[in-house]
């Protein structure tokens, strides 16, 4: 099964939600819906801010503790970029439906309940950001994310961006980093054994992918190395430009 190396996205795919997006990259496909700002339940409402509620539904099986963990990570990240102070006592409801994850063809997988937490976080975050943009929920910045694994290769280690399930099996550590469009670090989760130097290398790799400044086509091809991944910011911008051009066709 060919795994796409370039991300793909479609916006406003769900007609009845305020905003929605479907995003796929590196074998993960996620559909997100955003509703809000709507009225929060009395027991959930906050006097001065909007409550951001994230719900993650796995592809197969009922949700469990793993999904709750993903939800809390996403909830704290998204609450920082959404302008929650604009909507006191309201609710921004984000539902993320995982549609597919990359299969490991060589192992007979028992029903896996989203045990690969980390590599799916960038896809979830990216889909949520696209859906929020489609719903026109006011935000202070956009965000991009990527996952990097530190894989041993002989005596050395190399950074693998968007690791495959096989890479993940042999990796010594896996890291997820997200950056806002102001180059601030929004999210950093790591798992495994790693040194501070390795984390710094991971940080630089992720930053290169997520924070590539908007350059013209000729100048930014100087970045070589096998860890070069897709330009997430550029992708986000071009997806939105297409959508806005369609919305404003009447101008």
């Amino acid at each position, binding site marked *: *099964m060919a795994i796409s190396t370039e991300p793909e996205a479609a916006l406003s795919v*769900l*007609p*009845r*939600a305020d905003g929605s997006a479907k995003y796929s990259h590196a074998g993960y496909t996620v*559909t997100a*819906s955003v*509703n809000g700002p*709507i*009225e929060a*339940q009395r027991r959930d409402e906050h006097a001065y801010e909007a409550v951001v509620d994230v*719900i993650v*539904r796995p*592809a*197969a*099986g*009922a*949700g469990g503790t793993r999904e709750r963990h993903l939800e809390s990570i996403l909830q704290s990240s998204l609450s920082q970029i959404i302008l929650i102070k604009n909507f006191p006592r309201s609710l921004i*409801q984000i*539902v993320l*439906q995982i*549609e*597919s994850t990359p*299969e490991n*063809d*060589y*192992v*007979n997988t*028992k*029903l896996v309940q989203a045990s690969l937490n980390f590599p799916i976080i960038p896809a979830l975050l990216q889909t949520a950001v696209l859906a929020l943009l489609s719903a026109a929920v006011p935000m202070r910045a956009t965000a991009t994310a990527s996952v990097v694994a530190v894989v041993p290769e002989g005596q050395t280690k190399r950074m693998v961006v968007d690791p495959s399930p096989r890479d993940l099996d042999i990796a010594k550590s896996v890291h997820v980093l997200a950056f806002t469009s102001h180059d601030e670090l929004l999210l950093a989760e790591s798992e495994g054994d790693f040194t501070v130097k390795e984390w710094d290398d991971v940080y630089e790799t992720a930053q290169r992918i997520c924070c590539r400044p908007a350059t013209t086509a000729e100048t930014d091809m100087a970045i070589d190395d096998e860890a070069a991944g897709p330009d997430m910011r550029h992708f986000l911008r071009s997806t939105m430009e297409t959508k806005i051009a369609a919305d404003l066709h009447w101008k």
Partner: protein
Amino acid sequence: MPREAEPSLNEKQFLLQAIQENLRLDGREPDQYRPLGLTFGDEHGVADVTLGKTRVLARASAEVTVPYADRPLDGVFTIATELSPMASPAFEVNRPTETEVLLSRLLEKTVRRSGALDTESLCLVAGQKCWSVRVDVHVLSHDGNLIDASCFAVVAALRHFRKPDTSIEGGVLTVYTPAEREPVPLGWLHSPFCVTWSYFGDEGETALLDATRAEEQVRVGSCTISLNRHGEICQIAKLGGTPVDALMLLQCTSIALAKVKEISSLLDRKLDEDTKQRNKGGRAAELTAENDR
């Protein structure tokens, strides 16, 4: 607690008046379905169904488990439907609403209890190991008629699904990975589909097929008929609502049969197209093991 948005008096009155004049908001006939779309995923067992603006995703999966103690020769088959706020902000996770309970119950009766899937074929080692097939139904968008769309998605997903091939030698079970042996389809006996009629008027005298959400909110009764293309009825559910004339019900049932034949051939066509696309190398002929029925 769901806070369903009620339609205004103007909307209710107009819808009822329009239906009396044989007009539907989208210009359909009373017995016309909205465009029914079906796409299969890259993996086996994923069916994405669109019925107008309603969208349902069904995903079939299987794992090896221990059979129930009182049914040692049968496999396990479950259908899980859980409506999330993605379908509508009126739904909450872990708080089943009436819609959800009814949907779950109707799918259960239509697909599970009617024996569409041959659970005996799921048995691997009597009393010890069997396949547990699970279909997860995700409603992505709710614009009415979740029942018909979900049932279609479940049946499509199950017929599209392939479980890993197995063999038993001397009491030792081997489950082959997809890389070792091509996965095989499930033992399928018949394909049931649901057809839901909605009734309007003081005596339920006007019947409409495939109601949109707005039409569902003003209807006075509904009836779901589940049957397969051979005319074998799995169940008829008319749960409360205004009483409907018996002859009208019979008429609804016969129109339902015509619709099910159309839906059934659509599914067959889509499955064929999908198979052709996957097996461009021509390996399809060697691998078919399903019953033709």
